[in-house]
């Protein structure tokens, strides 16, 4: 076991960092030992991808170093590096970091400060909006480990957000930051990864993918039940692992500079330095989530404009270059990187067609590039990063989904070290998404983001004068990097938050009614238990869930808590910090779905009736069928509507539905419900094949996946308002 730093009193700040360093070598060695195992675990075909993921993991760890660097100098170094062209800002940041550091106790928080320094410096320089600062403050309010986490997030945001002055970058930061902020201790590694992601690629999802390796390493102790890492030396030791790995990165200024370069490079490519740094980041963020090859496009575009970024991103991705790093660490990373190329099967795996072609070439090339003593050649590295990422993606199809049933039990999940998340953070379960997203081309995604940024800048005008356009854009899907912000604007929850500063904290301070608290507590571990954010008992996601659900019962004591609110709140928490999520939840419960969660559940039952009437007009055959077998709407529709489909659709589709829902309101649920019904029972053959109540219910419960693809789903939404045809409906 790694020498764990003692539980976090202030004095430990420096000591811990030393311990962290000391641990570096040990941990490095441990990683060396582990990785081959990982590779062996998989089938031949998967070896490559695993190893590739492993190296990405190391990389993630290295970034963590950046965030986790405890010492002030390092922080400042980082800040300086990060600041690049804005030394003054960086200096300020450092200063503020130190100040904050004084206030904060644990090493973790110090780390956080390092992170926030950067953010502070940057955001000040950038004139950043409240979002970032709130992210920062969230971090500050967290427990030690949380700090590390959010720090990471912040570090990430600094790179991304810092670059762009545009307020939009903020939201991206928020997204990253908030997610990270709600993570578990292991999540440190994860969010770090997210940062990594945001640095070179800036993709939260990519990051999520790559980082999970680190998560695995770091998570073991957390799994063993330490909620508060700071109280559990081991847990800390673990996170030190992540840190130590990252130290390497931190000690390599060039590498750091590189990754920044990557971003600025892409900025250049984008022509508009500020807004673009962000958008590039955001775009590439979403890109890798989709396919390795898409990323390849994005990256190479960048590369064409400027060779350096390529190298940089490659450097970032292949971070653990053997330079000043502790020998063991080096060995570890080398091993990790070597793995794929050492195993010919790695190359084979891709060509076997298990997943993307990029995956096939990726690991091998990546390893070579990274093995080079100097900065890898631009071209090679470019490919490397691509392939590595796709390799990571590939590894998503790893063994995990097969044995998900054992997840979630604290006792059983001894070491899910190599389980990986999909691009939405799911580790398994029915909403785990194996397939790489076939989606919007990079340039289109970029364009969309710019359009959304423009809308954000003149939001009120857009909403009042060009609502149709906003609606259309929501139907096309809100760019994932901007989703959190868009949801808050669409629901007007941001205004609510602004009007009620501090109220959430005030609600939190109140005791709450025991019967609601009991009920909430019982449900905490049952919300998206396969999502990385909620997988750990008592983990950060679950804590935040408790906070906002409880706050709601205090805010509306007469409403109390309804079990169906929990999944809704959880979805919000996956995108934004607790306070924002709370106000968003308030809007959903009171503006979008008033009465849905109230004591009698009358509203949802009424909507069931309405849906039945709608069905009679819009799908008479299905309606007759359902009546014949006495399948009443309330039977299948309660969960759909009360959870806003969050538990009933593939995740990509859930997000698209929510995008539209926030824009257009409850009628979207009727439309989606109608689409699902048509998918399930839309033809005479389908009706014939499910004769009976059970069979019909079964069919409704499991609409075949192709019909649930987000694009298909959105496409099939009735173009004309079906409700408008019904005179009786308000």
């Amino acid at each position: 076991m790694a020498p764990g730093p003692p539980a976090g009193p202030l004095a430990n700040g420096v000591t811990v960092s030393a311990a962290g360093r000391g641990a570096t070598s040990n941990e490095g060695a441990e990683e060396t030992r582990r990785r081959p195992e990982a590779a062996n675990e998989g089938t031949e075909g998967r070896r490559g991808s695993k190893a590739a993921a492993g190296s990405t993991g190391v990389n993630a760890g290295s970034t963590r170093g950046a965030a986790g660097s405890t010492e002030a100098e390092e922080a400042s170094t980082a800040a300086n590096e990060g600041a690049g062209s804005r030394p003054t800002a960086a200096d300020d940041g450092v200063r503020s970091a130190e100040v904050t550091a004084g206030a904060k106790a644990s090493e973790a928080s110090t780390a956080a400060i390092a992170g926030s320094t950067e953010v502070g410096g940057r955001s000040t320089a950038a004139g950043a909006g409240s979002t970032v600062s709130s992210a920062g403050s969230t971090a500050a309010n967290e427990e030690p480990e949380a700090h590390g986490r959010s720090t990471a997030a912040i570090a990430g945001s600094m790179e991304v957000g810092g670059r762009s002055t545009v307020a939009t970058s903020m939201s991206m930061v928020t997204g990253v930051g908030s997610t990270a902020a709600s993570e578990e201790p292991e999540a440190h590694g994860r969010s770090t990864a997210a940062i990594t992601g945001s640095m070179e690629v800036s993709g939260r999802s990519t990051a999520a993918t790559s980082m999970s390796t680190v998560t695995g390493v770091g998570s073991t102790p957390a799994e063993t039940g330490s909620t508060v890492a700071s109280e559990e030396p081991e847990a800390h030791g673990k996170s030190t692992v992540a840190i130590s790995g990252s130290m390497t990165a931190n000690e390599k200024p060039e590498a750091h500079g590189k990754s920044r370069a990557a971003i600025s490079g892409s900025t250049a490519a984008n022509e508009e330095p500020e807004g673009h740094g962000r958008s590039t980041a955001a775009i590439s963020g979403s890109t890798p989530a989709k396919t390795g090859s898409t990323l390849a496009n994005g990256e190479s575009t960048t590369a064409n404009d400027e060779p350096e970024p390529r190298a940089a991103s490659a450097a970032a991705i292949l971070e653990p270059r053997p330079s000043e790093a502790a020998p063991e660490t080096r060995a570890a990373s080398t091993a990790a990187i070597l793995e794929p190329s050492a195993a010919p099967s790695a190359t084979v795996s891709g060509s076997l067609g298990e997943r993307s072609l990029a995956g096939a070439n990726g690991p091998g090339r990546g390893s070579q590039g990274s093995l080079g003593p100097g900065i890898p050649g631009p071209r090679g590295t470019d490919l490397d990063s691509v392939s590595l990422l796709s390799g990571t993606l590939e590894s998503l199809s790893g063994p995990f989904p097969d044995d998900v049933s054992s997840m979630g039990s604290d006792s059983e999940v001894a070491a899910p070290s190599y389980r990986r998340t999909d691009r939405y953070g799911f580790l398994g379960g029915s909403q785990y998404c194996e397939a790489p997203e076939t989606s919007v081309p990079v340039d289109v995604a970029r364009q969309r983001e710019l359009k959304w940024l423009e809308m954000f800048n003149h939001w009120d005008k857009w909403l009042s004068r060009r609502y149709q356009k906003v609606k259309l854009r929501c139907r096309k899907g809100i760019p994932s990097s901007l989703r959190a912000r868009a949801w808050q604007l669409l629901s007007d929850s941001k205004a609510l938050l602004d009007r009620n500063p501090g109220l959430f904290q005030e609600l939190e301070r109140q005791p709450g009614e025991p019967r609601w608290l009991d009920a909430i507590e019982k449900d905490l571990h049952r919300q998206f238990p396969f999502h990385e954010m909620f997988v750990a008992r008592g983990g950060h996601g679950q804590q935040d869930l408790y906070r906002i659900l409880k706050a709601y019962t205090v805010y509306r004591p007469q409403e109390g808590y309804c079990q169906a609110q929990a999944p809704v709140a959880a979805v919000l928490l996956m995108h934004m910090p607790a306070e924002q999520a709370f106000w968003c939840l308030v809007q959903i419960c009171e503006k979008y779905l008033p009465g849905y969660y109230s004591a009698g559940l009358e509203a949802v039952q009424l909507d069931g009736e309405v849906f039945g009437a709608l069905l009679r007009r819009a799908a008479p055959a299905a309606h007759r069928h359902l009546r014949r077998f006495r399948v009443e709407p309330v039977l299948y529709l309660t969960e759909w509507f009360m959870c806003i489909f969050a538990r009933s659709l593939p995740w990509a589709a859930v997000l698209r539905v929510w995008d539209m829902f926030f824009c257009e309101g409850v009628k979207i649920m009727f439309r989606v419900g109608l689409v699902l019904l048509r998918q399930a029972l839309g033809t005479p053959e389908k009706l014939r094949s499910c004769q009976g109540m059970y069979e019909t219910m079964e069919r409704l419960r499991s609409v075949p996946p192709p019909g649930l693809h987000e694009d298909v789903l959105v496409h099939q939404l009735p173009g004309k308002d079906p409700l408008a045809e019904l005179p009786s409906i308000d």
Partner: protein
Amino acid sequence: MEAIWLYQFRLIVIGDSTVGKSCLIRRFTEGRFAQISDPTVGVDFFSRLVEIEPGKRIKLQIWDTAGQERFRSITRAYYRNSVGGLLLFDITNRRSFQNVHEWLEETKVHVQPYQIVFVLVGHKCDLDTQRQVTRHEAEKLAAAYGMKYIETSARDAINVEKAFTDLTRDIYELVKRGEISIQEGWEGVKSGFVPNVVHSSEEVVKSDRRCLC
């Protein structure tokens, strides 16, 4: 080939939130145990065939219900069409036991004019060390309401089959004795396809309905 069953019984599973209703049903219908299951929102629906005597099969339709009180406005609509019910409490949660009475009252009101044959189920009996309800008092309570009592564990698959099949047998006996009869417009008991009977052409057509069990 189509499954042949004598009767179809509809059962309902009720009890406080988190006593393990969904897990018990899943163990029975799917043979597996999920460490975590989403809180049920509204009602859910399962089905399985049970052989109570060689060659005599009963099709069970099992309704799973949300435990939280505010969902009762939805779930109570399903009491009426049920012939049997499993009333669960968690042996490690005294409160859920204390609420048994309330559950019975609740169903009594909404099941009129029919009746539900209930079995009281003390669930999570694998967690015996955390037990807050003794077997004795549970049996006493069950007897007071004319119910049988059984302790089950979905995790360790203890008595899960027995809980369902015993209840099914009891209902079957009542049906055989005519104490429960099939009624038009009531879904609690339906007769199925009797084996060893030559199918009329109509029945052959009907036999298209397949059971997925």
